[in-house]
């Protein structure tokens, strides 16, 4: 699937959770979905947003791993932690700006979305993008996206002063070039 990219469009998400169920059925991590569908503001809206690993160019999870367990392969995919190395310290879970890694306590290992590496490396599309009925998760070529969508893809995110560029694209309004997230603001809202 050379030339294919992963696009997330939260505005298209209908919250059906087909992606969660499809991910959960994968035999490499059966019963543990590596994708989350979150309600943005449960009180006031039914809007949901799916979250897969963004596969950062300079992955924070791997930067903070004290056990050298998180590796990025040459095709830009940040893999799940290596089982012989992972010490289940949850550093990556705390550090990831997107909140993607999950520490599976029963396995004592961090597992995360690896863009269905068994599928994408063999020329198939990721399971979530295959089942998404509204194509909020799409694994297509950039030409297809620019032809079929009004929104514009970006892979630049700002978390305070941290600039993160990613392999996975997020659809944003055409006038925006990047996504800025005020982490402290979100935390304040959550605690109130």
């Amino acid at each position, binding site marked *: 699937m050379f030339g294919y990219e992963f696009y997330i469009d939260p505005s298209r998400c209908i919250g059906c959770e087909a992606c969660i169920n499809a991910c959960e059925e994968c035999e490499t991590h059966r019963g543990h979905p590596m994708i989350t569908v979150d309600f943005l503001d449960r009180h006031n809206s039914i809007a949901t947003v799916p979250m897969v690993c963004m596969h950062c160019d*300079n*992955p924070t999870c*791997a*930067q903070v791993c004290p056990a*050298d367990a*998180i*590796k*990025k*392969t*040459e095709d830009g995919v940040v*893999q799940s932690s290596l089982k*012989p190395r992972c010490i289940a310290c949850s550093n990556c879970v705390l550090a990831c700006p997107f909140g993607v890694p999950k520490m599976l306590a029963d396995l004592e290992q961090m597992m995360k979305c690896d863009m269905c590496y068994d599928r994408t490396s063999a020329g198939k599309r990721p399971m979530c993008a295959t089942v998404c009925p509204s194509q909020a998760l799409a694994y297509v070529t950039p030409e297809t996206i620019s032809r079929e969508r009004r929104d514009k893809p970006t892979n630049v995110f700002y978390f305070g002063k941290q600039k993160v560029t990613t392999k996975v694209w997020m659809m944003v309004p055409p006038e925006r070039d990047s996504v800025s997230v005020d982490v402290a603001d979100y935390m304040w809202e959550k605690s109130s």
Partner: protein
Amino acid sequence: MKLFRRSSAEALWRDEFPIHAADERYVNRRQFTKFLVLTSLAMFAGNVWILVRSWLRGTPAFPATVVARADEIGIGGVKLFSYPLPHDNCILIRTGPENYVAYSQKCTHLSCAVYYSQTANRLECPCHEGYFSVKDGSVLQGPPPRPLPRVILERRGEDLVAVGMEVHPEG
């Protein structure tokens, strides 16, 4: 995988623990274990081969070699010779009119050449002052762990003939 560290602006620790899988060049535990196991197997096979070879060949045969004429050296004199192979240096000492002894010249400590001290009547190793008895090659003092191997001599007419080596049971 690169064998040598390339010049890099990164810190050494980051270079040794890279995020990119392609930059990893250190063996992991499983590879190291495989290496240990395979090397041990190879060592074991080599040892078995040496054992089988020594079984097949049996005990080494010592040729009867003329090392000196009986009147060649005076009493208290020495003669160096090689026995049983050209590089196995030995020392022959005439201790009395009809008494001859011969020993390997290799000190049993670290293989320095021992020499005969006529005044002290003993074999001396100059390296660490290991002394051996002339009578039977036993250790008198110093670090050598075993007596000197003795060359068995026979008198055949006017010739002194080496017919074997007598090695201390421990060594």
